[in-house]
């Protein structure tokens, strides 16, 4: 059941992104940042936690999940350190994801040469 929920939740978020891509003239980069901002907003109003509870990794892995982590980190840091947490909380909570992106990005760039978009 856990796997099915994750599949459905992640799939639904991706399907919405695909529809936005096909139906609007928003660039991929704008849709990407839009997803992050939407995650922040949804968690700020307290909705995204329910999605995470139901969808698990299907909700935390897509970009809205990154926004959710930022928002949650800010809430936690504010509770612990006061108002300064608004500035530090988001990136502290997302540090793992960001560092992993930098490290793996560097590794891939060092190990591989970019290829064609289509190999066949």
């Amino acid at each position, binding site marked *: 059941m856990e796997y099915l929920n994750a599949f459905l939740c992640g799939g639904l978020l991706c399907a919405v992104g695909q529809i936005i891509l096909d139906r609007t*003239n928003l*660039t*991929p*980069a704008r849709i990407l940042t839009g997803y992050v901002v939407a995650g922040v907003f949804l968690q700020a109003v307290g909705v995204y936690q329910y999605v995470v509870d139901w969808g698990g990794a299907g909700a935390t892995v897509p970009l809205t999940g990154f926004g959710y982590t930022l928002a949650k980190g800010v809430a936690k840091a504010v509770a612990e350190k006061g108002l300064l947490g608004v500035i530090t909380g988001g990136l502290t909570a997302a540090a793992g994801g960001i560092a992993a992106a930098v490290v793996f990005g560097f590794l891939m760039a060092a190990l591989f040469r970019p*290829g*064609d*978009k*289509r190999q066949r």
Partner: protein
Amino acid sequence: MDIKRLSRQTCRFLRPPGVVSWANVGGRLERQGPLGSYFDVTDDDSFFGKKTWEQGETEMQAIALRRALQKGGLTPEDVDCVFAGDLLNQNIGATFSLRDFAIPFYGVYGACSTMGESLSLAAMAVAGGFARLAAAQTSSHFCTAERQYRAPVPYGSQRAPTAQWTATAAGCCVVGAQSEGPYITHVTRGRIVDWGITDAANMGAAMAPAAYDTLTALFRDTGTAPSDYDLVVTGDLGHLGHALLTELFRRDGVVLGDNCTDCGILLYHRIRQDMHAGGSGCGCSAAVLNGYLLHGLRTGKWQRLVFAPTGALLSPTSTFQGESIPGICHAVVLSRTKEAQR
């Protein structure tokens, strides 16, 4: 008396300069397309044996020029000047490709209309007696264009359904006063036309009004209709832009028949190669002209055709700032024989 100048836009050549030789270069998808057999050189390696895609694109232009000279039995010293451009910042595809040739060089930028612009200028330079032989060349490369205009290829972004595929191709055309043809009888220089399209993933729609403007001027100034030509080939409007152009002419009561097509339609199999709205890029019209079209004219498949590449004059910055996309279209009339009508 204006005998060479029919209007602000259209020029007629009293002694039409001719195409001496031509060559084109393509990548793997271009080889697999319907015009694959009309390429002089193709390479399945998108780097063309170089380290970067930009160097690969530069190499394509150098190969096209070298091959065109070779086919015409010429050396670089025979060519008085070359008009060339591409889509890269500061036109490095053109300039870097000419490092080893020592041919006097004019850099031009007309986005995907560059083949039409450079060919017009080369023809005028020859017809005016300012050059005995002049070359026109350009290129585009899918992977460099993605980096230049959208996102680097490894980013893996999806293309919108209206988007076109930038051709990995180059073409070079050598024009001279002495030639067995085909001949360039007229050129119609394009104006900047902007009808307010802001979607950078729909350049066919942005360029169709420019094609309409230039072709309308050409037909008016020469007293011809689309049906007077064996072929009217626009640049890279693709399927969508071609449909829009047909509609624009239909409103004027002018029928664009089966003899009217587009380089972006000709270069690829739309469905089998999943090309969305068709091909684009300077190299698209350059490769179609310097293979399929010129070959067909010389062998007598067609007697007279209009080659009208179109360009979308946007920049990545202007796109981010929400600016609309100005289009341009340069038309060149090519004829198998020297007799220019009218």
